[in-house]
């Protein structure tokens, strides 16, 4: 059996003080694999991504998450990020007044410091940034704008993939990155994600629709329903779900 990057075991979680959303979710992601997590609205997809990123306001009531064999849940939000966990937001946050270029350089240098690499100077950074921008077909002028401020929906998602390309995370979690994208943007984002595949890198693609999976081929597809993985299949499962919907898999569970 291949080495596991992420092992989620019997995870129960809720919004603090609220009803349980994840109800015994288990999932294993081997190093170097891309898995898709699909499921209807309300199945717990976004909660899973927030719990993995460490967002405040979410409570894990039982279960465990091991990342490279370590307890992910014991790490702070930013420790997880520096250790190589990246969450591509469903709704990237606008931050007026924080210049995108400055922000990107700061996050790249934070990651590099964690890896024991020297800081990039502005010239070296610009070279990297321009390569990443080109990959997602964003104009270099966006470096001068405030983070996500006034970006179109497509630009925001491209900016997420661009950050992913810069940071080279070990584990990428894409939370509905395909939602709200037109066909061109979807292709660019899909190609960006596909390009990030590598033997040492893994990704969880969380999505409601299989559209993104036309551009990125996952090793496995998990179907999430009512807070648990109810079915796991090969890449072909995505197409089947598109044709048949979720009902045949989740039956009377919802």
């Amino acid at each position, binding site marked *: 059996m291949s080495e596991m990057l992420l092992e989620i075991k019997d995870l129960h979680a809720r919004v603090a003080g609220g009803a349980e959303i994840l109800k015994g979710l288990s999932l294993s992601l081997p190093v170097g694999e891309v898995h898709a997590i699909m499921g209807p609205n309300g199945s717990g997809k976004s909660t899973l991504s927030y719990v993995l990123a460490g967002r405040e306001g979410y409570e894990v009531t039982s279960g465990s998450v091991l990342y490279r064999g370590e307890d992910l849940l014991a790490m702070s939000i930013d420790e997880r990020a520096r250790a190589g966990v990246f969450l591509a937001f469903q709704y990237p946050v606008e931050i007026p*007044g924080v210049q995108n270029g400055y922000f990107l350089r700061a996050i790249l240098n934070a990651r590099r410091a964690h890896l024991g690499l020297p800081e990039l100077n502005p010239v070296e950074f610009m070279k990297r940034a321009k390569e990443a921008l080109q990959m997602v077909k964003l104009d270099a002028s966006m470096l001068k704008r405030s983070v996500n401020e006034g970006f179109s929906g497509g630009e925001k998602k491209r900016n997420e993939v661009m950050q992913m390309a810069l940071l080279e995370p070990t584990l990428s979690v894409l939370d509905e990155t395909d939602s709200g994208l037109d066909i061109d943007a979807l292709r660019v984002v899909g190609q960006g994600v596909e390009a990030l595949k590598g033997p040492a890198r893994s990704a969880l693609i969380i999505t409601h629709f299989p559209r993104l999976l036309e551009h990125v081929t996952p090793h496995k597809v998990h179907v999430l329903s009512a807070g648990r993985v109810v079915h796991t299949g090969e890449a072909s499962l995505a197409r089947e779900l598109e044709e048949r919907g979720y009902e045949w898999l989740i039956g009377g569970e919802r």
Partner: protein
Amino acid sequence: MSPSRRAPLAPPRPLTAAAPLLPPPALAAAEGALLASGGFGKTEALWYTPVGEALPREFVRLSPSVALEARGAARVARVGALSPERWPASPPVTAAGVSAQWAALGAPAAPPLGALTGAGAALGGSALCAWSDLSADGALLVWVPPGEEGEVRVVYTLDVPAAPAAPAAPAAPATGALTRLAARCGEGARLTLVERFEGAEGAEGAEGAEGAEGAEAAFTAHITEVELQAGADLTYTRAQGAPLAHLHLGAVGIALAAGAGARATLLNLGARLARVELGVDLAGEGARADLAGAFVGSGARLLDQHLTLRHLAPRCESAQRFKGLLGGISRGVFTGRVYVAPGASGTRAEQSNPNLIASEGARAVSRPQLEIYNDDVQCSHGATVGQLDEEALFYLRSRGLTRAVGERLLAEAFVGEVLERLDDPGAQQLAAEALARALASPEEPAQ
């Protein structure tokens, strides 16, 4: 009425002053009356800032040391006692002395003491001005001849003597200084003026729980007046970064004739209590004032900005944008009064005062006041009090930045539009230090 007749209103304030700077006895008595009973005590304008209670009742008058750079066509003279080592002789702060120095600079005659320039009226009613008129220790006079361009940068430093090491030792007397700067620009002249207020932090300057308790009271009081004749242009930066032990009182008056323009940036960052009044008179048709400020509080500081902007002539434009960032248990007060005179048609005035509260104990008070006697105006104002955006903080942290770095980025972004106006490295440095203090959590001080 002569000042001496008012003396019975209150006992004279004893002054343990160095001989050459001691004001005449009659003036001291009038000062005592002013401080104890009048201006600083009970006016509504000082509701949130107890200047009268905070002022030391007894102090040694000191001259702050002044580092001054003048470039271009700006001509500078002084009256009274400022930086004596650098300026060996100057007339005293009297009407005759001031007039003589204006004449020596080649400037036209100006109103004497009480309003060093025509801009004094913009500060009408200020208790600080009334006090300073009675006994300023020294003043700088700046003149830029018509059509010419000049630059003046001044750093005022008043160091607090170290507190006695042994608790039993007698306390060192409080120190203080009342200084002024009056600048005048002839028609079409351009002036860049920077004033910074600094001083070394004593050991007691660290923002521990004790705050300034152990420190000696000291104050700096400074009035800046700028008179802009027709078509003149001013770029002004005022950065207040006095040590925590200080009380800082400031007043800035700017009077603009027709077609004149002023761009002023005020940073209120230091001292334990700092009150800065800004009075701007748009007195000539088509004058413009672009005013911005940042007050950044930490510890138990109280930072008060008190603006009065008067549209007195037609078709003038004004903008005020003052941002408060408050940490610790600091308090920020913004009062912004915009007055539009009956004849000031075509007025455009904008005002905003967003505040960011960076800790649970901090507070902001915002008091916009519009007083409009004219229908042909476009005025807007907005005041907000908010906290650091947790959503944005989560985003920054999810990219690997620590909470502290994320908070700093967001705080810098908040005051960024004010700070990016600064061209003075010293002022930028004071702002960066104040930001770090405001964001330092009590458990882990920035120092």
